[in-house]
């Protein structure tokens, strides 16, 4: 029998703000433990929460970026449970009236596994706001609590169970991260715990409408581990079902070293969190006008921008995908491509040359020494025949990287203009034929490809400046004549 997996993701993302969700303490990673605390985020007697307006604005922005409906009326609730990571022993969260409802994120292109990924939209059920909890560190017999993280604004993004493969889950996470980074909502650094993901997965015979038994996977520390855990868990569930086993609803822990999921706890009955409306906070209302005001501040959604790059600049969907992965890169490309006669070449230059060099030097696009205008100019110089591609690559571009100067200046100063003058090229042709009798002989014996070698020699002799298109007929002429 054929099976399919049904995957839903619950993603927690810390919202990038100056201060915490309900108090004035700094929202910053990496400080000395328990230095970013106050009576409010420590849950001291008598302290009260005050909602961070910037965090609320950002979650609305996240909702708009994901195509959600923004609630006109939402409120905060208390979720009750005892744990030392929770200073008040209740968490302020949103139960039935979250800020954002019903959005979607498209995925497609090539999957993490290398397989093609069909275009698909993954639904978002809701995005709600809550406060992060303290960080627990277990030290042998004791445990240490760092409340710096307690009260950091956290949004929970709940997807629909729309994903069917590990590749789709990976692509959804990548797209989500991209959207949130674009709008400056979260830095989404999983290593810093700024983005956390729980997976819900079940399997069912292909074609069946009902869901199988849902299993939750926790302890996923990277997108890759999400992918790996699913690659392990889906076959495990299918095997169990095939063997006639009845799966239990349970939570499993991903062991990254062993590459397996291990039972953590069996969900016999749902925990009763006794949610009720938070009486210390007023409900939050959003008018259409306020929502539109936030929308006006938002950047173009990355996948919309990707499609626009394809139509507006005539680049391939893959190039557009690469160029829109991060907003600074997309901004860079757009600044260079806009008004350029060669937007495709600009894209090629950025993807094949610029990104390679930046990668080698460990620089981000923001630190790039070449301005977008110079990048466009370089593509223009090549496209317009002023310099050859080979000179551009070997001499002009490296000089631009070193000096940050305009390519036209470099070309002028070093006299790198392409040589189109037949009489000048003829000299190089004569030299090339004289210096390479073997290639000449092979050409004359009928090995047509040898002429490309000779074109290369002409380029070499001219230090790349000879127009190869002009060199070829001149070579042929001399060889055939001789």
């Amino acid at each position, binding site marked *: 029998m054929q099976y399919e997996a049904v995957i839903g993701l619950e993603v927690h993302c810390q919202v990038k703000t100056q201060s915490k969700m309900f108090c004035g303490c700094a929202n910053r990673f990496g400080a000395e433990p328990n230095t970013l605390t106050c*009576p409010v985020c*420590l*849950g*001291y*007697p*008598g*302290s*009260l*929460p*005050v*909602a961070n307006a910037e965090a609320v604005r950002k979650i609305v922005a996240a909702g708009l970026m994901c195509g959600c409906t923004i609630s006109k009326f939402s409120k905060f609730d*208390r979720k*009750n449970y*005892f744990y*030392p990571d929770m*200073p*008040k*022993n*209740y968490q302020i969260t949103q139960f039935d009236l979250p800020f954002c409802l019903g959005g979607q994120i498209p995925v497609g292109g090539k999957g993490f596994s290398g397989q093609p990924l069909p275009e698909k939209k993954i639904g978002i059920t809701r995005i709600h706001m809550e406060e992060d909890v303290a960080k627990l560190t277990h030290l042998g017999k004791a445990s240490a*609590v760092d409340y710096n993280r307690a009260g950091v604004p956290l949004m929970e993004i709940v997807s629909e169970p729309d994903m069917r493969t590990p590749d789709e889950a990976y692509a959804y996470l990548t797209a989500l991260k991209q959207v949130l980074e674009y709008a400056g909502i979260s830095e989404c650094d999983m290593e810093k715990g700024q983005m956390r993901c729980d997976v819900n997965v079940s399997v069912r015979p292909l074609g069946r409408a009902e869901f199988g038994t849902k299993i939750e996977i926790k302890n996923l520390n990277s997108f890759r581990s999400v992918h790996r855990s699913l690659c392990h868990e889906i076959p495990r569930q299918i095997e169990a079902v095939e063997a006639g086993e009845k799966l239990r609803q349970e939570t499993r822990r991903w062991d990254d070293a062993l590459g397996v999921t291990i039972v953590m706890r069996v969900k016999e009955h*749902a925990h*009763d969190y*006794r*949610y*009720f409306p938070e*009486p*210390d*906070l*007023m409900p939050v209302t959003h008018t259409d006008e306020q929502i539109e005001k936030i929308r006006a501040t938002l950047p173009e959604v990355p996948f919309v921008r990707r499609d626009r790059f394809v139509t507006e600049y005539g680049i391939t969907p893959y190039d557009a995908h690469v160029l829109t992965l991060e907003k600074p890169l997309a901004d860079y490309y757009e600044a260079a491509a806009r008004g350029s006669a060669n937007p495709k070449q600009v894209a090629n230059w950025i993807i094949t040359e610029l990104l390679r060099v930046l990668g080698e030097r460990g620089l981000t696009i923001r630190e790039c020494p070449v301005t977008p205008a110079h990048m466009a100019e370089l593509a223009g110089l090549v496209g317009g025949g002023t310099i050859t591609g080979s000179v551009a690559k070997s001499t002009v571009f490296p000089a631009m990287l070193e000096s940050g100067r305009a390519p036209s200046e470099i070309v002028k100063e070093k006299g790198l203009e392409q040589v189109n003058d037949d009489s000048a090229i003829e000299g190089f042709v004569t030299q090339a034929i004289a210096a390479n009798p073997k290639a000449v002989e092979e050409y004359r014996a009928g090995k047509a490809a040898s002429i490309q070698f000779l074109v290369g020699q002409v380029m070499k002799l001219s230090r790349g400046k000879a127009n190869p298109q002009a060199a070829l007929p001149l070579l042929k002429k001399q060889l055939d004549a001789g």
Partner: protein
Amino acid sequence: MPLIDLTIKQAATALAAGETTSRALCEAFLARAEAVEPRVKAFLSLDREDVLRQADEADRRRASGAARGPYDGIPLAVKDNINVTGQPCSCGSKILAPYRATYDATVTRKLREAGFIFFGRTNQDEFAMGSSTENSAYGPSANPWNLECVPGGSSGGSAAAVAAREAPAALGSDTGGSIRQPAGFCGIVGLKPTYGLVSRFGLVAYASSLDQIGPMTRTVADAAILLDQICGLDPMDSTTLPGAHGGYAAALEAPADVRGLRIGLPTEYFAAQGLAPDVRRAVEAAAKTYEKLGATLVEISLPNLRYAVATYYIIATAEASANLARFDGIRYGARSPEAKDLLETYRLSRAKGFGDEVKRRIILGTYVLSSGYYDAYYLRAQKVRTLIRNDFLRAFEACDVLLSPTAPETAFKRGAKSADPLAMYLADIYTISANLAGICGISLPCGTGDDGLPVGLQLMGPALGEKKILQTAQAFENVAGPAKLPELD
């Protein structure tokens, strides 16, 4: 006049005239406290050195012309659930026995900026849960009028301290009557402000949607003075009301005039079972007084009032069950030394730290929020709360203030009701609805009952109707004279 007989207003005048000093005032009240505390037990702590240090600072400021205002140097007792930096804040509970406040409540900050002296921590029912101070983990306070009787609660220590002239005034908190009922039992003035008029930041929460801090004083004028100091929008408390508040003392400067005022008498209140005849007599006499002064008495019906006590004990306990969850022995407060693991730390610290009434209310609140019961209890209580609020909105179309007893009887003997929590709950009937509706109410003395104990008269006004109830109270006080206080000698 002996210094301990001074009201805030009189003390301010005396200080301004240089007739007395903050030190002299504080020493007089400290001496009085020393004399009567063994019998009254109004205070949980009173640090003589700390009080005198504050007094000397105030005197120095005044001497150098840098007084913080007319009230700089006047002592004020504070209920033990309001944070004052460095002072205990036990809330009458064992679980907070070792706790010292690490920050100032907003009201504390405002009063500090006005120069008030923080004069001791007053006793209360544990976490403000109770009507007699018998639920204090540190023993009950006594009613200065009759030491065998309770002073009321939960702000019973504050009421007793003011009535015993151990302090000119005090702060209390009122969740279901905890300012007004002890004020009534002790024959002083107690005002519960409109919900959101006074910041709750720094008030240890019992029931967040009901709690308000308010003044407990000898005179109506003093209540207005204190309310002016503590009211106002607070960026630290999202539930405070926007707008310009204050001007209460100023509103009392004009001669109190109730001519044409429509005073509503809620029929349900006067028909209530358990309303003692002597209390009824005193309150009806007060209504007659108003009539004589030119007010019109109107009969008013508040049909949903009969659900008020049940509604209150669902909403208040639900909120309390979450509010008190933070007392777990982990970060502050008492931690059980016998606990061997996390779960035991929670269980033993809370089992030993909380008293019976607190446990009863946490369990009740946990129950009404539980899955399967939420709709039948909590959700329904919230709906009834809206109906009660609407009853009051309608009532205030037909009248300007509502008049009723503060409590169905005068102060009862210690132990008389401790075995019957339900009877204790039901006695909150007159005060609870103002908290549910979020409106304001004041209790002022209106004579005595057959037992010679004070009877409290309650006036309730619409939201932000503080000026109206203060002016109305002032008119009665002008006729009846300021509160008479027991000698206790």
